[in-house]
């Protein structure tokens, strides 16, 4: 699980990319991005997540998000990234969904 909190702005987007791509390259099958305390994310942060998604897919892994705020959820919907990042109300739901699909 990766927990994002506070304000994810342009200066930290490279950290997101580095973290998610690194986990994907380690063949982590399911990466849950916990967003309960995430107040803000911009397209740089979203781009970092997409980079992680592409690497995860290459290694047959998945990235999903848990507990996004209404503002972040709207952002994911507007950009259609909700189509590639399944969203769950909490980490437990994400794990349960994964267990159900195994």
């Amino acid at each position, binding site marked *: 699980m990766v927990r994002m909190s506070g304000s994810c*702005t*342009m*200066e930290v987007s490279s950290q997101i*990319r580095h973290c998610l791509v690194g986990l994907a390259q380690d063949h982590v099958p399911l990466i849950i991005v916990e967003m309960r305390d995430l107040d*803000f994310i*911009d*397209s*740089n942060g*979203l*781009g*970092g997540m*997409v*980079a992680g*998604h*592409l690497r995860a897919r290459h290694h047959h892994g998945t990235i999903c998000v848990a507990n996004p705020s209404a*503002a972040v959820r709207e*952002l994911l919907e*507007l*950009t*259609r*990234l909700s*189509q*590639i990042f399944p969203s769950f109300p909490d980490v437990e739901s994400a794990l349960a969904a994964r267990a159900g699909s195994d």
Partner: protein
Amino acid sequence: MSDAPRRTADEPMKEIVVRNNLAAAKLPEEKILADVTAAGYGEEDIFAIKLSLEEAMTNAVRHGNRNDPTKHIVVRYSVTPQRTVICVRDEGLGFHPELVPDCTLPEYIERPCGRGIMLMRAYMTEVEYNENGNEVRMVKVNQR
């Protein structure tokens, strides 16, 4: 002579000039958001302004000024209880915003970049570029 589009006159604007790097680009954001908060904008509008400013500054740093540390970005802004106007100008050659692909199309969704302009247009009341494409003017009408 300014090549900005003709429009209703903006309120008197403050100006901040910053060096072309992501850290320096935070200064205008901090000042503008402080004014917006003091003017009584709601959370959603503050989010919208912050997001759009981040996108505009990122575009200026990376694309307009091509990450050249010797270049600068000029930010002009005015904040009233009715509306906020922000202009971001880089020293680049400009571009054609209408040629930027729609990032929500299936063939572009998985691109790591290309969402900034779409988000600016979605969250701000008005977004327009000058003829050269090296200055963007954004307006947010207070929804409260």
